[in-house]
């Protein structure tokens, strides 16, 4: 792990703050790092419990939360802003003369969360209010009132700037839980068709998501990917062989394979979603390793932008290829009553969204923490799934990808090429300057 990076401006500001004639700060006053982790714990719950937060929508929220947090920290410490780097982000308001970082990040995250999750239910609203009030009281306990107010005001200004920018990206409005009311099927044998008996899911989720403005990707949306094997119903074809692989594995799944499928299932409204799974991994690492604020914020914003851009390019390609799911093909040609282990997501198959975003997530995390960074993943412990250990981020991404084959919801090409697509996305994020 790299050493904590402190620049001259941070030291100066810290000095100013310490020089103020303020009452003694409360002994149990939370550090800014604790404030960030507390808010992200709540955000992961809000992702799970807000009905519109399907994986693409969740990825967008993590990106904007990360940018808001980064810009707050960067402005306080004189670090490099993403303005001019992230597409369409203009220079942000400058910090006042002195800020308290805990008060600043608390204000930033409380306001950004409240606005990004304005559509959550009464329990989420109650939780956000309680967190804002209770954590806010601890943060300002003993803090000079003027400094607290200035810090909070700066957080407000940053969030206002970020969310005004967010309004123009194409993804700010999600209706009918992301399912369009009208949809014209592709009509070809290879075309995606609905796979569930859920009435709401008879159209594909968020078919226009691929048109959203990305954070890091530049040019004519890069990171396309090679075609899947040509669609064919010939038993000798490569496409048929992929279906046979999914079918045969489903018949011989080991307990470990079933566990892997469920561990990475990350169903919306029953988990923090795939983007939240990676954020959960990062926050666990942050807590375990007592990551300092600037490194935590840097990792959170890079991860957030990477998964968000991964979903954008993935969704654009998904709708272009418009490929049917294994359950449709296998029932049509191999076993009419075949049931996969997992529920099939309601959108086209190629590539695998989880694979793409896991490829992106693992690549940015490896760039930050190194290639052989071992960690434990307790994301689903409260849901009764065990903690899993991984020797590296890429190993976790590989497992996330193959889990979709075990679950019977993706062909292999969607997984392999999806991970490659995500790695391509990560290169753009990794080129951005922060610390």
């Amino acid at each position, binding site marked *: 792990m790299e050493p904590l990076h402190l620049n001259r401006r941070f030291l100066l500001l810290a000095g100013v703050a310490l020089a103020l004639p303020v009452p003694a700060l409360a002994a149990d006053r939370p550090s800014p790092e604790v404030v960030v982790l507390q808010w992200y714990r*709540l955000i992961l*719950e809000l992702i799970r419990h807000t009905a519109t937060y399907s994986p693409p929508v969740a990825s967008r929220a993590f990106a904007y939360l990360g940018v808001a947090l980064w810009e707050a920290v960067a402005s306080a410490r004189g670090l490099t802003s993403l303005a001019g780097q992230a597409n369409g982000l203009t220079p942000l308001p400058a910090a006042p003369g002195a800020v308290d970082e805990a008060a600043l990040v608390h204000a930033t995250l409380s306001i950004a969360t409240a606005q990004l999750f304005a559509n*959550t*239910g009464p*329990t989420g609203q*109650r*939780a956000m209010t309680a967190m804002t009030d209770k954590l806010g009281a601890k943060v300002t306990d003993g803090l000079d009132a003027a400094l607290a107010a200035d810090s909070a005001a700066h957080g407000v200004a940053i969030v206002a700037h970020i969310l005004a920018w967010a309004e123009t990206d194409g993804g700010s409005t999600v209706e*009918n*839980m992301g399912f369009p009311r009208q949809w014209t099927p592709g009509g070809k044998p290879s075309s995606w068709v609905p796979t569930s008996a859920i009435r709401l899911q008879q159209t594909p989720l968020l078919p226009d998501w691929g048109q959203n403005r990305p954070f890091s990707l530049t040019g004519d949306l890069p990171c396309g990917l090679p075609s899947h094997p040509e669609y064919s119903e010939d038993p000798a074809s490569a496409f048929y062989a992929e279906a046979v692989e999914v079918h045969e594995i489903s018949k011989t799944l080991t307990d470990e394979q079933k566990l892997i499928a469920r561990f990475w299932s990350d169903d919306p409204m029953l988990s923090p979603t795939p983007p939240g799974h990676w954020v959960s991994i990062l926050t666990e690492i942050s807590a375990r390793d007592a990551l300092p604020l600037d490194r935590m914020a840097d990792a959170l914003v890079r991860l957030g932008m990477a998964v968000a851009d991964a979903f954008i390019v993935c969704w654009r390609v998904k709708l272009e290829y418009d490929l049917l799911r294994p359950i449709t093909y296998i029932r049509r040609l191999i076993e009419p009553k075949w049931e996969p282990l997992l529920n099939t997501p309601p959108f086209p198959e190629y590539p695998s969204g989880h694979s793409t975003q896991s490829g992106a997530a693992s690549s940015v995390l490896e760039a930050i923490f190194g290639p052989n960074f071992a960690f434990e993943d307790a994301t689903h412990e409260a849901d009764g799934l065990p903690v899993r250990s991984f020797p590296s981020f890429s190993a976790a991404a590989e497992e996330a990808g193959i889990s979709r084959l075990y679950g019977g919801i993706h062909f292999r090409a969607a997984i392999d090429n999806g991970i490659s697509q995500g790695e391509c996305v990560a290169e753009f994020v990794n080129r951005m300057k922060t610390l």
Partner: protein
Amino acid sequence: MKKLVLLAFASPAFAEGPAEGPVISQFVEEAETAGFAHSFSGEWEFVVGGGAAVFDCSGDGLPEVFMAGGTNAAVLFLNESSETLAFRKATGSGLEIDMVSGGYPLDIDADGVTDLAILRVGEARLMRGLGDCKFTDASADWGFGARDLWHTAFAATWEKGADWPTLAFGSYIDRAQEEFPWGNCTENLLYREESGSFRTPVHLAPSFCTLSLLFTDWNRSGTPALRVSNDREYYKGGQEQLWHVDPGTEPRPYTEAEGWQSLRIWGMGIASRDLNDDGYPEYFLTSMADNKLQVLTTPGPEAKPQYADEAFKRGVTAHQPYTGDDLRPSTAWHAQFEDVNNDGYADLFIVKGNVWAMPDFAQADPNNLFLGQEEGTFVEVGDKAGVASMLQGRGGALADLNGDGRVDMLVVNRNGPAQVWRNAGPVGNWVAIKALMQGANRDAVNAWVEVRTGDRTQRQEVLVGGGQAGGVLMPLHFGLGSAENAEARVIWPDGVTSDWVVVTLGQINMVER
């Protein structure tokens, strides 16, 4: 020893409806003229609940209505209906209780007077019926050690050989958890009696933030199991549940190895009816957006608890408003099957209402009335029937409130006025059957009542539980369409089957044992 007794409230049979499509009963809202003024009120702790208990405590054969009040006092409406609906708010009934979320009628002590199990945000209560619509808190007398929980669900059965009922109370969330309520489901409890007193309850662990419970003989084994519908908004690692509750043994949930299939929904209410006349009940589970209609996949003595969701196939997903401009997904609460147009096919009533300012879901969310059809599908007629209320519904009930043979409707709305509709018909032939036993379990809970017309047999299970925090304890209503003759029998809870007896149409027929 079985006998058939005819009760009053005859009404003439009505002519058959149009040849095409089901007959659409017309409902007339009469809350204002009927004196049916009440509101279930409250904020976060009363986002769920709002149940109604419908039962006859005056002995006149017309059902009274008990309604939860939340932060208002609960209310008992005495039924003074004739042709039109008329109610009078009871005073001094003993049921003017605060923090009530729901209630279910049952005769706990087998004295022939219906009692009430009261769900509260706080300690639940068992209210003993004293007659003449008076009640007293018998919780202590009956050894009912209630706990301070957010009570949300109830069901009861009489286990084989038991003189007293076994009671299941469902609860929701730890109210003390403000920032992180998720994953903090509180305990569901099973109370069994011993020597005239309820023992320390058994924790039905794991509990998953339950909003509806129902003892039901799903496989016709003669031993009801406990169906549990849970709200996935709050549990972690949870799912819908089915519990073995076998006499003399500890309750245990059905497992995957026994065929139970994981289903995770915003479970809010359970309705049950044998819709396909195969002798096994189907279950309608309310949720948000799509709802579920579960049909047993392999009915028979060796049936596993595996269900196919046929809501889409049969037209009852009820996933979004069917009228009005608000097309956001729906939120469903109470559900109940009854034959409102007496055509012989059970209809489905669903109470709808936004949880509380949830912008992703419809605010103007009309209640549903689906009419059942011969081929097993349903057609929505809520707007045509006049019951498409857009208020924030929670509990409700279908029951013949004025004894005219037409099933009426009431809805408990959150932070809004309760509503009641008189079914103005038209009405086909019908019969109501009351199964009555001597001694324990007087209302024959978990008996099956069968009505035969020609070569068709309709069946209903006598139930205490399900719905959204409330239920009906009245004679079972069967629509008969154009049939002019019918027979009935009762399969009693112990499996003994009564003889078929000819019943008189247009009346309540009592089958005693």
